[in-house]
């Protein structure tokens, strides 16, 4: 998949649209999302990179990049959002790289994760805490 920046931004807008206000997701809802993607297979580490700011400049639009060479799909999860499944990027066999960038909305500080489905059917995960703060006191 080769997305132009404009297309990526459009995908991002879609991701934001998903995050409508709803009651906080339960832990089981997150498990459901993961299981639906992995079919219950175990998830390893390595091979997938998640790049995002440590502290969000604006929790309503947080830039993230996921990169998993050889992946066929990457699922992005924000467990403390009303809807934890943010988006899934699917990569066809002709994709030049398995990398995508978008902007997501975060309801609060949380550990965002990216799970990649590799061509051999295995799953890999990367995660990082993205802080959403009220800010102030600039030193």
């Amino acid at each position, binding site marked *: 998949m080769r997305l132009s920046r404009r297309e990526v931004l459009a995908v991002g807008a879609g991701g934001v649209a998903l995050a409508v206000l709803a009651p906080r997701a339960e832990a089981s809802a997150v498990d459901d999302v993961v299981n639906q993607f992995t079919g219950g297979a175990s998830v390893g580490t390595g091979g997938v990179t998640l790049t995002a700011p440590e502290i969000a400049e604006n929790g309503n639009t947080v830039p993230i990049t996921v990169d998993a060479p050889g992946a066929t799909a990457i699922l992005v999860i924000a467990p403390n959002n009303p809807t934890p499944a943010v988006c899934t990027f699917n990569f066809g066999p002709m994709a030049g790289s398995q990398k995508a960038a978008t902007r997501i909305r975060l309801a609060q500080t949380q550990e965002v994760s990216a799970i990649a489905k590799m061509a051999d059917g295995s799953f890999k995960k990367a995660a990082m805490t993205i802080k959403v*703060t009220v800010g102030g006191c*600039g*030193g």
Partner: protein
Amino acid sequence: MISRRDFLQAAVAASAIWGADGVGRWSRLAAQQALSQDKLLEFDTLGNVTLIHITDSHGQLVPDWFREPETNLGVGADKGLPPHVTGADFLKLYNLKPGSPEAYALTYLDFDALAKGYGKMGGFDRIATVVKAIRAARPEALLLDGGDTWHGSYTVLKTQGQDMVNAMGALKPDAMTSHWEFTLGIDRVKEIVKGLGFPFLGANIFDATWDEPAYDPYKIFERGGVQIAVIGQAFPYLPVANPKGMFPDLSFGIREDRIAQMVQEVRGKGADLVVLLSHNGFDVDRKLAGRVAGIDVILTGHTHDALPEPVMVGKTMLIASGSNGKFITRLDLDVQGKEIKAFRHKLIPIFSDVIAPDAEMAKLVAAQRAPYEKEMAEVIGHTGGLLYRRGNFNGTWDDLICNAMIEEREADIALSPGFRWGPSVIAGQPITREDLYNATAMTYPNCYRSEMTGAQLKAILEDVADNLFNPDPYYQQGGDMVRVGGMGYAIDVTKKQGERLSNMTLLKTGAPVDPAKTYVVAGWASVNQGTEGPPIWEVVESWLKRKGTVTIEPNHSVAVTAG
């Protein structure tokens, strides 16, 4: 009668030289020497490169008093490490004598008494003398400014930073990076940068819409036959810690990958020495140094730490040059085969009564101040005790500001931001309008008056506490802890966000703060756009003029547990 200069000559020397070929701590080599300009500048030129570092001068064109922190807690991996060492522990660590010039310059101990003897520090005319002396010894020295330069005084505010642009410009720096500069507003920054005459570097400053680099990331200088790459790193959390509406199209962040990429890029272009001119703050730079290979020297900034020796992280040397014009660092390096073979370092304390002012710069500074001298010099009150700000929790300057807000704005509770800038006023001195602006001058000064529930107050304080005490420095975002008037609390800095604060108490009644109850809160420097209220300096001036002489009582309303 003994003059100040005689007194200082009689005192123990202020500094020493420490390097790979030196053996002792800061004071040892120069023990028993008199404090004189020659001794302060004494330096046996080494190798083929000299770096001169100045940072966080915060608009202080003329000498000032600046009390170093009493409380500066490190958390996580930084616990107990410099710069999180203060007072007697600092003296012990660096083998300094109590009451010595270096104890006065580097710690809070007996500050009031020592300040009267040793006098003010800093001043751009004295700094110019030192820079010229270093350049006389090493004409190709690089002068690097870590930022927070166009900010923090009456004249900066009135001239939109032009006074500092002129004064720093006359020192002819080779590059700078930034933080508070952007609170002048993006249009003004663009205007200044256009005519600056030297690079305004920020590898981590990006266009917010397209995520593309917005400023030059680095510059490579050839000096003494050495290719020196200087990579700039602006304060990473400008849009979080300061009002992002003032620079709406910019994005910052630590962007560790970007720094690593820039290091590779400059090495690929043949750099022999890689210097990071940083406004990250010391703990962020310490972590970065351990994760990004290939940086030889990090010139740190933002957290205002003054360290008499470099801190080594692997092969990376971290330099901390203080703030408010009190110090500049001279670092000589012998670079051979893309490696530092030897170095010599000196944190030069700018004792204003010892170092002669440079006539040219003195004239330039006077010209910047002349149109405002009369209004700046007006005495608006007197202080019975020392006024200072720096430290993790309340200082007397902010206690004064909070008291003024509570009375002038008829509030239950007052919040004053935990800035690290703001010089001190010595006990028994008049408070001039200039002194007040030195503690408050900035571009979003409105003093709001609003209502908050106890629960909201707790959430805000917990948020700010996590921005200071998160054990991972990459998640620390701003200044010191917000200062609170009218309310006491206990804090355990080792706990997680949401669990650090307890025993919030309304001081005027002694009652616990009720999460459900609403309180009237006054504060200033809100990052929210459209905050309404008079500028904080008007609030404080009106209060001071009513009070006459103010003595801030010791504040015991914050109980700190550091684990």
